[in-house]
């Protein structure tokens, strides 16, 4: 259908388009100018130093990490239960129930943010980090399920049956046989959920009371031109961090795939 060379050039342009903003981030982070635009001036690490001395940023970062760890743990637990139920058992209503759980994947985040805000206000509760955590668990769980489905589907059931035959209880089998076999999937799910939560803006924007998360803090600073270079530095740190986390997640996903001995062509989803 498509001619070889032209097709290759098209893909090249596509990759430039895809990576353009991501590549600009580190360039401006080290640029010695208080204006974020071309031409570039010189090399500096000054903007990273500015970050080091901005204490509201540290508070926001701490909030974000706390939220992300909690949300990643909870969504992986909920995802494990759902993925196990979905891959191992057959029962009436399974499909619609799972479809409903996966719904936040296609729902605009603003709808989730708004509806949780309405509930919290109607019930007279105050906004706290927990409201953001619950919102994040809701959007991370579908991703956890997608990753863990792969892990559980490749699980050889005869290993569990062997364990039952040898007299182990259900719980012990799950703990000693099943969990170690799907461990790479669990780690991968934790890392992906952590990355999503750390970067999520809209839900946190609606549900942040007095305690901002990192993206909410960044959003507030984007209005001030003087803050932009240090935001580029912050963005670079976050970029490196998410690359590390994603690389790790991919490594564990592949190890999981290898452990169960299958071909490896897919990505995260």
């Amino acid at each position: 259908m498509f001619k070889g060379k032209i097709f290759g050039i098209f893909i090249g342009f596509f990759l430039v388009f895809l990576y353009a903003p991501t590549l600009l981030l580190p360039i401006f982070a080290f640029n010695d100018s208080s204006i974020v635009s071309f031409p570039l001036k010189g090399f500096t690490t000054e903007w990273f130093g500015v970050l080091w001395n901005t204490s509201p940023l540290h508070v926001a970062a701490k909030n974000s990490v706390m939220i992300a760890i909690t949300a990643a743990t909870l969504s992986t637990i909920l995802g494990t239960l759902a993925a196990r139920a979905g891959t191992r058992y057959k029962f009436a209503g399974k499909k619609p129930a799972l479809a409903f759980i996966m719904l936040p994947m296609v729902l605009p985040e603003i709808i989730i943010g708004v509806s949780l805000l309405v509930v919290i206000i109607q019930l007279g509760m105050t906004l706290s980090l927990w409201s953001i955590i619950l919102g994040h668990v809701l959007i991370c769980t579908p991703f956890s399920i997608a990753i863990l489905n792969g892990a559980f589907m490749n699980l050889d059931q005869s290993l569990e049956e062997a364990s039952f035959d040898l007299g182990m209880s259900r719980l012990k089998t799950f703990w000693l046989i099943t969990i170690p076999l799907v461990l790479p999937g669990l780690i991968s799910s934790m890392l992906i959920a952590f990355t999503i939560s750390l970067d999520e803006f809209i839900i946190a924007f609606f549900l942040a009371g007095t305690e901002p998360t990192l993206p909410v803090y960044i959003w507030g600073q984007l209005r001030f031109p003087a803050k932009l270079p240090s935001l580029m530095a912050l963005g670079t740190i976050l970029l490196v961090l998410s690359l590390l986390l994603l690389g790790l997640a991919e490594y564990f996903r592949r190890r999981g795939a290898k452990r169960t001995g299958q071909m490896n062509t897919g990505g995260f989803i």
Partner: protein
Amino acid sequence: MIAGWRRWRKSEAAQGMLLLSPTFLFAVVLLAAPLIMVLSLSFWTQNYLDLDKTFTLDNYKTAWGAPIYQTLMARSLKISLLVTMFTVLLAFPVAYYVSFRVRPERKSLWIFLITIPFWTSYLMRIFLWKVILGYNGVVNGSLLATGIIETPLSFILYNQNAVVLTLGHAWIPFAILPIYVALEKIDRSLLEAAEDLGDGPIRRFTRVTLPLAMPGVMAATVIVFIPTIGDYVTPRLVGGPNGLMIANMIELQFKKANNAPLGAALALSAMLIVSVIAALFVFLNRKYLKGPE
């Protein structure tokens, strides 16, 4: 009775249901219940600090009748449709390339490469489009330097085109993945069969590859179309005054304008419209293109 219950508890179905119930209940409590609350809120009225809980359709009358909301809704729909078209048309050849041209052992790496930008700071990515498209931006800078233009272009930022481009960039991995999965599933011997029966590359593509890839294209369309209508950040950062979308108005009603019921009505109306359009699209595709079961 009790024996029956005990037997049921030990059955496959019961174990599966029990296992799924915590996740399902979580979604019911945090998604279904809040959505129902938003629905009831949309039939109430805000009187300064109090909520008047008598049933009224006034919020919907305003949301569907007032020119400002009509304009915003129409514009949001237009932008969402354009983003979906742009994204799917761009995603198809990329997915095709990875599925048909890349060596099998490299495919996983390619998919990883394509998804990476999606996982890196969302706000920064959108903000950097402002730097790329701006008056002193990368595009203008390089066009000026090469002498193609003499004054910077101003029509590339702070308008709807910028919103379409930026949103398309943000959503492209989500469009590539389902199309790629559908293309991967195509039995390659069907393509050989088409060739053996005398189809040229173009006929083979339109009669075999494309129809078999349609489920992926449909999934991509729905996955991109529905969430983009609710995007808040992109219109605020690169849209300018004429590029604002319905989500910006929803936020305004919930926060500064202190009219949550109207905000709820706007949010639900937007969801209703995109869901109906998406459902219609899937239905028409199923009816007229009759893909594989």
